[in-house]
């Protein structure tokens, strides 16, 4: 089920070009019709299967850092 985060760099109907780490390829947007240029999407087997919400990504990381900082009280000796 691996899917790779890639950025949409241009779009034409169901076809789009995506890029990540200097690699670009053509993908299909039938499963994600409202995706726009500039969106980060998960690409699996040549299709974009979902958008990546950058704000949620930041919040998840912040939550992880908060959880980690709480361990000062619960440190196991």
């Amino acid at each position, binding site marked *: 089920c691996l899917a790779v985060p890639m950025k949409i760099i241009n779009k034409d109907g169901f076809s789009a070009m995506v890029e990540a780490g200097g690699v670009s390829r053509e993908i299909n947007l039938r499963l994600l019709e409202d995706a726009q240029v500039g969106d980060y999407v998960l690409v699996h087997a040549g299709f974009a299967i*979902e958008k990546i919400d950058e704000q*949620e990504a930041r919040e998840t990381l912040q939550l*992880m850092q908060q959880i980690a900082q709480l361990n000062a009280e619960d440190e196991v000796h």
Partner: protein
Amino acid sequence: MKFIDEFRDGGIAHDLSIKIAATMDRIGRPVSLMEVCGTHTMSIYRHGIKTILPLSIKLLSGPGCPVCVTPNSYLDHAVALARQDTVTIATFGDMLNVPGSSTSLARERAAGRDIRTVYSPLDALTIAKNNPDKKVIFLAVGFETTSPTIAGTILEARDQKVSNFFVSCAHKLIPPAMKLLVEDPDIPIDGFICPAHVSAIIGSQAYEFLAKDYRKPCVITGFEPLDILQGIYMLLEQILIKAPRVEIQYSRVVKQQGNTTALNLIAKVFKKTDAVWRGIGTIPESGLSLAPAYSPFDADDVFRVTGEQEKEHPGCLCGEVIKGKREPETCSLFRTVCTPISPVGPCMVSQEGTCAAHYKYGEG
């Protein structure tokens, strides 16, 4: 932000593991968590997650490796299709070496059959367009992450009026298999690390029955190490307060309703059927086959061939490993007769198979 490196920070991993240990102290008993998806299994081993978890947490590998649960009969049927004149088989790479009853697609290719590996079902459609004299059959194996991509490809084939493209469908659905597992008293599951990208399609709603009807905590978890550690921590917090529910750790991608466009495409192009899971048997309503409107693309309708009499290696324990009941190390074939070079069972072949993970990374 690249959405990968940020979720591999060793410092945060260390701190999360301390939090996990503290919560386990409060739970005060061993806990068994099942990671359903084979991609989680591989990530857990690749990143050495088990080495920073308390020994009292047992991680069980579930049936979430599509190659591993594909029955011999499907492989044997694919071989029979490959032996038809003018047929070209297109398949994802990890199906190539899976042993059927007496041969494999790799061996058939070596014997001269036209069998090609593709990254996408769209590539198989391109092969069909470029070879009008050939009948191209795509081996459609995979869960809900993959089945919408085949549905999308069939619509492309229809719109482009490609008549020499076919699909041999063996798609399977994750929730029915999870239901079977929680109903098996011999499999101790305290909570599920739910698949990341299957859930991007089906949404968290699809697991509600597990929390409501079976009192099983569920956390939809990303594949990066910090995602997995946070997912485990969230499961333990649910276990601690005895409040099973479905939570989304992988919120940057997964939504409650999933990808409705993809779900509609699946419902349009496929219909639910009973399906045979290798090592498990038939699970009701756990597979997909092409809906009647798309039968012209259905290789099982168009090509009336039968595979050889199905045989399984008597010593192979993949069926038990797939359900999390046995560890690969307890299989007599593991590391001796069954290796990545000469695999006996599917769990050693697949990139996401439990035996492949144990062989490559040890017990983790």
